C-alpha cells in the first residue's frame, strides 16, 4: 500500500524519530509563518508591536485558543463539535445575566463552565450512545442551543455598564503586555497538552481517533472517552463564553454565531488531522494565534479587512496542501527505508 498517503502527523511522545521531526516541523512551520508575518508588519508599521499591540494580539487570540483547544480534543477522537459557537454565546449571556443580578464574578465563571460542560455532555451522549455521526448531531445542537438562546435572550443585551468593574478590568488588564486572560488560556493549554501526552486516558483519545475498532478491542472505554472529550470541549467553550463577556462586555443573542468555523479552521491549520489520532494542542494554539493575528495585521499594513476571510481560507488550504505533500514525502522515505532494512536483513 504505497499510495495511501494519509496525513502522517503522528502523536508520538518525543523520541527524535523521523515522524516526530515532521510533527515538530509542522508546529515550527506555523510559528515561522507567524513570526515572519509579525516581523514584516512591524517593519512596515513600527507601532504595531508596542506593548498595547502585543497585548491586543494576545487578547484577541485568547478566546479562540480556549475553544480551539477543546475542539482539538474532540477532533483527535475522530469527532467534531460544531455547537461551540452557540455554547459560547449562551454561556456568555448566562454569566452576564447572573452578574447583572449581582452575582459573584467567580461563581459566574463556574456557572458558565458548568453550563458549557452540560451542553458538551448532551453532545457526547448523543454521539457516543446514539452512534450518530458527530457532524450531524452537533449541527443539530448548534441550532437547538442557538434557538434556546434566542428565546431566552430575546432582544435583551448585556453591556459592560451592568457588569462589576473588577470583572471587566480582569478582562482588559494584565501584567504589562501579558493579559490575565492570556495567562489563563496558557495555563489551560499547558494542562490539556500535559494531560493528552502523559495520562493513559489522554493517550486513549489518540488511540480511539486513530482506530476506533482497535481501541474497542484493546479495552479502551470508547464511549466514556468520547463523552469526556465533548464535556471538556463544552466546558472550555463555557469558560471562553465567560471570558468573552469579560473582554467585550457586550453579549446579545447573536454572540458566537458562526464562530465554530473559525474554531475548526484553527484546529486544522494547527495540524490536528480531521481523521483523528494525531496532532497537538500546541499546534492548535499557534493556529489560533495565526488566524487572529491576521485580523490585526491587515489593517495595520493598510489592507482592507474584507480580505481577512479570504486569507483565512487560503491558509486553511495551504495547511492541508502542506500536509499532503509532507505525507507523500514521508511515505516515500518510509518506503526507501523499508527497502534498505530489507536488504540489510537478507543481504
Amino acid at each position, binding site marked *: 500500500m504505497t499510495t495511501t498517503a494519509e496525513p502522517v*502527523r503522528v502523536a508520538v511522545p518525543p523520541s527524535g524519530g523521523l515522524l516526530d521531526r515532521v510533527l515538530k516541523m509542522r508546529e515550527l512551520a506555523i510559528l515561522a509563518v507567524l513570526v515572519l508575518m509579525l516581523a514584516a508588519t512591524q517593519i512596515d508599521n513600527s507601532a504595531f508591536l508596542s506593548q498595547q499591540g502585543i497585548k491586543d494580539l494576545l487578547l484577541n487570540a485568547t478566546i479562540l485558543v480556549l475553544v480551539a483547544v477543546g475542539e482539538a480534543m474532540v477532533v483527535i477522537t475522530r469527532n467534531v463539535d460544531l455547537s461551540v459557537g452557540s455554547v459560547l454565546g449562551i454561556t456568555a449571556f448566562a454569566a452576564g445575566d447572573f452578574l447583572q443580578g449581582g452575582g459573584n464574578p467567580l461563581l459566574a465563571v463556574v456557572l458558565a463552565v458548568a453550563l458549557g460542560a452540560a451542553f458538551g455532555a448532551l453532545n457526547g451522549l448523543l454521539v457516543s450512545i446514539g452512534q450518530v455521526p458527530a457532524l450531524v448531531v452537533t449541527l443539530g445542537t448548534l441550532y437547538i442551543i442557538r434557538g434556546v438562546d434566542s428565546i431566552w435572550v430575546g432582544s435583551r443585551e448585556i453591556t459592560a455598564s451592568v457588569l462589576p468593574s473588577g470583572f471587566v478590568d480582569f478582562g482588559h488588564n494584565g501584567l504589562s503586555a501579558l493579559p490575565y486572560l492570556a495567562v489563563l488560556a496558557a495555563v489551560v493549554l499547558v494542562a490539556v497538552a500535559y494531560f493528552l501526552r502523559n495520562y*493513559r486516558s489522554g493517550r486513549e483519545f489518540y*488511540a480511539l481517533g*486513530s482506530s476506533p475498532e482497535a481501541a474497542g478491542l484493546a479495552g479502551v472505554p470508547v464511549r466514556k472517552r468520547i463523552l469526556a472529550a465533548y464535556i471538556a470541549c463544552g466546558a472550555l467553550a463555557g469558560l471562553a463564553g465567560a471570558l468573552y463577556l469579560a473582554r467585550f462586555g457586550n453579549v446579545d443573542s447573536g454572540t458566537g454565531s458562526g464562530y465554530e468555523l473559525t474554531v475548526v479552521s484553527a484546529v486544522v491549520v494547527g495540524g490536528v488531522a480531521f481523521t483523528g489520532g494525531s496532532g497537538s494542542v500546541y499546534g492548535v494554539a499557534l493556529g489560533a494565534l495565526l488566524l487572529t493575528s491576521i485580523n490585526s495585521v491587515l489593517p495595520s499594513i493598510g489592507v482592507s479587512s474584507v480580505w481577512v476571510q479570504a486569507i483565512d481560507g487560503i491558509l486553511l488550504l495551504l495547511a492541508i496542501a502542506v500536509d499532503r505533500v509532507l505525507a507523500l514525502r514521508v511515505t516515500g522515505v518510509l518506503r526507501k527505508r523499508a527497502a534498505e532494512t530489507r*536488504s540489510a536483513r*537478507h543481504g
Partner: protein
Amino acid sequence: MTHPAPDQVPVLALEGVSKSFGAVRALRGVSLQLFAGEAHALAGENGAGKSTLIKALAGVHRPDEGTVLLDGEPVVFHGPADARDAGVAVIYQEPTLFPDLSVAENIFMGRQPRRSLGRVDHRSVRAAAAELFRRLGVDLDPDQPARGLSIADQQLVEIAKALSFDARVLIMDEPTAALTGSEVARLFGVVRSLREEGAAVLFISHRLEEVFALCQRVTTLRDGAWIASEPVEGLGEDDLIRRMVGRDLDELYPKLPAEVGAVALSVRRLTREGVFTDVSFEVRSGEIVGLAGLVGAGRSEVARAVFGVDRWDGGEVQVGGKPLKPGAPSLAMAAGLALVPEDRRAQGLVMGMSIERNINLTGLRATSRAGVMNRGGERSRAVDWAVRLQVKYARLADLVGTLSGGNQQKVVLAKWLATSPSVLIVDEPTRGIDVGTKAEVHRLLSQLAGEGVAVLMISSDLPEILGMADRVLVMHEGRIAAEIPRAEATEQSVMAAATGVTGRAA
C-alpha cells in the same frame, strides 16, 4: 505429547454456548476446553462459527446461551478489557493497531507503566517494548509508528502485546495467513515457548499442515455446531477435511493442461524506486504464472503498478502487444486487465454496499445508457456472475460484509470476471478462505486459463503455487530472482530463490 490429565481443570472453556445474529445462528451449543500447556486447533470452513467463538472467548460477544468458564468458574466478560484482565490475549486475523501511534504505545495502550500522579512513564513504555522485541528476536523500533509496518511486523506487535501481560490464554485467528516460511517458523517458535511456559493456545489456520505441526488437540466446527474434539495425533489431513466439510473433498489443485497461446501481458524492465527493480516477465494466454516470494519482496507492488494503481519510474507494460499508459487503472481495465487485490476487505470490496452493487462496480458503463443506470441490466449481470461462481447469499441486496470470507472473495472475483478480462492478476486469491472454497477458486482459475485467459497468480501459499502454476516466477528483494518451469518447481527450489540462496536461475 502432552495430554492433559483427565482431572485437570481447563484454563478457559465454553460450555453449550449459542449465539445468534438476527436469524443467523452462528454458534449452536458449542463446547470447548483449553488446557494450560496445550495448543488447541480450531478447524472449520469459513462461516462455521470460528470467529464468533473467538469473540465469545474474547469478551466481544456475550453468548445468548451457555457459559464461559475461567479456571472452572463461570465468568461473564463484559468487554474485551475483562477478558484481557483475565489473561486472555487475542490476535485477530486483521491486525488491530493504531496507525498513528508508536509501536510501543500500541503494545501498552491502556496499560502503560505509570510514575507518580498517574502519569504515563514513556521511558518505561519504550524500554519494555524494546525488551519484548528482544525476547521475540525481532528488530523493530519501539518509536516507529504502526502505520507502514508490514502485516508480518504488525502481527509481531500483536504478539508482543500478548506477551506483555503474560497471557495465560493466547488465541490466534489465522496469524499465518500473511506470513511466509521463516516468519511462520519464528512465530511458531514463540508460540511453542509460550505453551511450554504453561499458556493455553487456541490456534486457527486454514493451512492444515500448520495445525498438525503446532497443535495437540483439535476441535472442529461445521455450520456453527460442534463436530468433534480429539487429539491431533493419529489424525490425517483427510480425516480433518472430512469433519470440516462433511464430505470427501475433490482435488484441491485441479490444474488442467491448457493450450498456451500468444503473449497477453508483457512487462519489461519495470522499476519503481525503492520498491522493485528491473522486473521483466511475460504471461501468455491460457497460462497460469505463479508469482512467489516472501512477503515484502514486492510482488503485490508489481501487480499494483502493472494495473496502474501505483506509478512506475521506468520500464514498460504491454497488454496484447499494446503499451499501457502508466498510472491509469481505467485504461488498464479497458485494455483487458483485471486485478483481484490481496486485501479484499480494504481493496477488493466496498463493505457497506450490497453484493449486487459490488459486482457491478466494474460494469457501470456496461449497464448504463447515456449515464443512466439500467437496474434490470445490473441485476441480471450480478445474478449471472453470482450464480456462476456459486456465491452463497440470501439476497443480492444484502451487504457484502455479511458474507463469509470465502464468499466475499467470490464476489471480488465475480466483479472482475464480469469485465471479461484477457489478463487476470490475482493477489493471494485464497488467503483466509476455507478448503472447500479454495478448491472452487482453483478450479475456476484453471477453467479460465482453459478459456484462454492469461492468469498471473501471486501467492504466499507454496503448495498452491506448485499445484496451480505452469511457470513460477520468484521475487526476492524487489527483483525477479528465478523463473522455474512447472516440472522443476519444488518447495526447495522456490524457497531457495525466494530467500536469495540461489542466484538468478533462469
